[in-house]
C-alpha cells in the first residue's frame, strides 16, 4: 500500500465517522428543541429520579449565581466572555437538556485561561459556594489550557443550590492537565453537570470527579480528541449515604488514531436508599486505529437497602486497535477478608476500616494532588464513622 492510498483511506474514514452516533451520547446542539423535557423512560434518564431534580429541567431563567472564590497562580486569568465568544473559543456544545439550559440561561460564560507554555506548581482552585437549595443557578465555564502548559485545576462545590453547569476543557497540543471536581455539597443540593474535554495532539489529561455530598448529583465526564496521540484518564470516587443519588456518566469518544482512555470509578454505599449509578461508554470510531481503552467501575456495598447500578458500554467501529476492555463489579464486605484480618488479631472495626481504605487507596493515590489526597483519606474516615464503624464494638 502506498502512502497516498493510506491518506485516501483515512480521509474516507473521517468522512464516514460523521454518520456514526453513540446511542448514549447524541451529537451536541445549541438548539433547545433538540433537547426535549425527558419523561424518565429514556435510556439516558431511566436511572435518575426526575422529581428530585426540583424543576431544574423546566428551565426557568434565573440570575442567581454561586459565590466564586479563586486561587489563581500568576499568569492564570479568569474573565467573563459572551456566549458567542465561548462558542468561538471552541466550546463543546450541550448534548443534553440540562447543559443546553445552562447555555441558554447562564448569560455568557467564564473563561479560565492558562496560557501556552506556562508550567504551574500550585493548583488553580475555584471555590464555588451556594447559599440555599432554593436558589436556581445556571453555570457556564470554558477552561483553556494552552499548548505545552502544565496545570492542575480544582473546582470545589460546597453549600447548597439547584445547580446545572456546562463546562468545557480545551487542552492544547502537548499540554498536561489535571482537573478535579469535588462535590462536597450540603444534604439538599441538586447538581447536574456536564464536563467535556477536548484533548490536543499528544496532550494528556486527568479528570477526577469526587462526590460525597448533595441530595442528587448527576455528572457527565466526556472526552474527545482534537488529533492523534492524546491521552485521557477519567477517575471518580463517590460515597453515597442514606437517601443520596449519585450518578456518574462517562463517555470516551475515540475520534482520532492512537489515542488512549482509561476510566476508573470506585464507590461505596451505605444507608437506606443510597443509590449510585455509573454508566461508562466508549465509542471507537472507524478512524481511531491503534487506540487503547479500558473502563472499570467497582462498588462496595456497606449496608442493606442500597442500590448500585453499573453499566459499561463499548461501541466499536474498527477492530484495528491496541486494546479495549471493561470491568464492573459490585460487592458487599467480603467475609473472608474480614476473617483473614481478624485471625491476625485485628478487631472487627479496624478490619472493616482497613478493607474500605484499601478499596479506595489505589484510586486516591492516582489523584496526583497531595492536599486533596489527604483530604480524601480524612473524608473516607469520616464517612466510615457514620455507619460502618458505628455499630461495631472495638
Amino acid at each position: 500500500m502506498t502512502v497516498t492510498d493510506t491518506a485516501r483511506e483515512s480521509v474516507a474514514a473521517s468522512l464516514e465517522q460523521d454518520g456514526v452516533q453513540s446511542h448514549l451520547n447524541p451529537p451536541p446542539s445549541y438548539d433547545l428543541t433538540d433537547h426535549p423535557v425527558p419523561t424518565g423512560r429514556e435510556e439516558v434518564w431511566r436511572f435518575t429520579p426526575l422529581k428530585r431534580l426540583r424543576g431544574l429541567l423546566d428551565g426557568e431563567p434565573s440570575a442567581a449565581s454561586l459565590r466564586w472564590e479563586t486561587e489563581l497562580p500568576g499568569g492564570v486569568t479568569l474573565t467573563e466572555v459572551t456566549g458567542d465568544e465561548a462558542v468561538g473559543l471552541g466550546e463543546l456544545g450541550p448534548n443534553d437538556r440540562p447543559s443546553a439550559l445552562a447555555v441558554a440561561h447562564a448569560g455568557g460564560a467564564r473563561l479560565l485561561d492558562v496560557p501556552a507554555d506556562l508550567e504551574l506548581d500550585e493548583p488553580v482552585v475555584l471555590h464555588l459556594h451556594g447559599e440555599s437549595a432554593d436558589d436556581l443557578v445556571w453555570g457556564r465555564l470554558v477552561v483553556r489550557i494552552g499548548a505545552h502548559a502544565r496545570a492542575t485545576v480544582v473546582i470545589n462545590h460546597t453549600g447548597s443550590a439547584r445547580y446545572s453547569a456546562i463546562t468545557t476543557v480545551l487542552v492544547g497540543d502537548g499540554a498536561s492537565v489535571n482537573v478535579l471536581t469535588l462535590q462536597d455539597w450540603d444534604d439538599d443540593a441538586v447538581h447536574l453537570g456536564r464536563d467535556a474535554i477536548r484533548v490536543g495532539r499528544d496532550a494528556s489529561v486527568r479528570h477526577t470527579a469526587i462526590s460525597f455530598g448533595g441530595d442528587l448529583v448527576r455528572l457527565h465526564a466526556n472526552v474527545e480528541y482534537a488529533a492523534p496521540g492524546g491521552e485521557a484518564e477519567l477517575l471518580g470516587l463517590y460515597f453515597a449515604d442514606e437517601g443520596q443519588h449519585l450518578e456518574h456518566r462517562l463517555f470516551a469518544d475515540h475520534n482520532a488514531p492512537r489515542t488512549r482512555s482509561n476510566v476508573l470509578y470506585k464507590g461505596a454505599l451505605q444507608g437506606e436508599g443510597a443509590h449510585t449509578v455509573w454508566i461508562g461508554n466508549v465509542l471507537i470510531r472507524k478512524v481511531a486505529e491503534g487506540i487503547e481503552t479500558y473502563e472499570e467501575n467497582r462498588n462496595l456495598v456497606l449496608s442493606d437497602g442500597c442500590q448500585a447500578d453499573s453499566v459499561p458500554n463499548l461501541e466499536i467501529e474498527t477492530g484495528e486497535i491496541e486494546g479495549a476492555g471493561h470491568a464492573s463489579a459490585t460487592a458487599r464486605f467480603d467475609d473472608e477478608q474480614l476473617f483473614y484480618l481478624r485471625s491476625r488479631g485485628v478487631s472487627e472495626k479496624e478490619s472493616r476500616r482497613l478493607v474500605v481504605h484499601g478499596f479506595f487507596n489505589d484510586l486516591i493515590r492516582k489523584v496526583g494532588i497531595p492536599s486533596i489526597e489527604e483530604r480524601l483519606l480524612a473524608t473516607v474516615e469520616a464517612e466510615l464513622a457514620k455507619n460502618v464503624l458505628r455499630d461495631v464494638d472495638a
Partner: protein
Amino acid sequence: MSELVIQDLQVSVDTEDGPKEILKGVTLTIKDGETHAIMGPNGSGKSTLAYSVAGHPKYTVTGGSVTLGGEDVLAMSVDERARAGLFLAMQYPVEVPGVSVANFLRTAKTAIDGEAPKLRTWVKDVNGVLGNLNLDPTFAQRSVNEGFSGGEKKRHEIAQLELLDPKVAILDETDSGLDIDALKIVSEGVNRFRAQEGKGVLLITHYTRILRYIQPDYVHVFVDGRVAEQGGPELADQLEAEGYDKYVKAAAARA
C-alpha cells in the same frame, strides 16, 4: 502455660440439605513445645478442625470444648483468639487489595501486642524475617496477597507466624503447591518458630513430604471427622508406604 486442649469437638456446617456434621468428636492435646502432625485424606475434616479452632463463622460448634492455657477459646471472637496466642496459617490466604503488607503486619502486631512496635527495631525485624524467607524488601509495599504466587502466599503466612509470634500455630496444608525449594524455606521458618521455648505446632498435611523437614513429635491419622490412629513419627512412614486405605475402609465399615 499454653497447652491447646481440644476435647470431643463436634462441628457442623450449613448446606442446602441442612446442617452436615463434619467433626464427630475430636480429642487432641498439644502441650508446650510439641509438634503434632495431622494427616488424612481429602474431605476428612482436617481443614474444618483448623478453621473451627480459629473461629471461622462458616462452622458451627455443636459440642465439645477447646481451651488454650485453660482459657475457653470457643467463647472468644476470632480476633480475641489470635490475641490469646492462636495463629492459623491458611491454605488459601485471602487478597486484601489496597492494604500493603507493611501496613497489615504493623496493624496486626499492634493488635496482638496491645501497643505499636518500636519503629526502629520493627523495620529491622520485618526486613530480617522477609529476607530469611527469600522475600524482597519491596514485597512489603505490595497489597496483601494480591498477585502473589502460590509460594509467595505461603512464605507470607510464615513471615506473619514469625513476626506475630503466637503460642500455638496451626498450619493448614502450608506445604501444598510448593516446590521443593519453597518447601525448605517455609519449613526453616516453622523450625525457627518452634525452636523457641514452649511453642506448640499443629501441622495439617495431606503428604508426608513436609515431615522430612519438620519432625513431628506425634502423628494423628484423621478420617471421617475423627482421629483414627495416633503414634510417633514412625506412623508417618507407615502412611507413606501404605496410604490411608485401611483407615478409610474401617471408617466406611463403621458407618
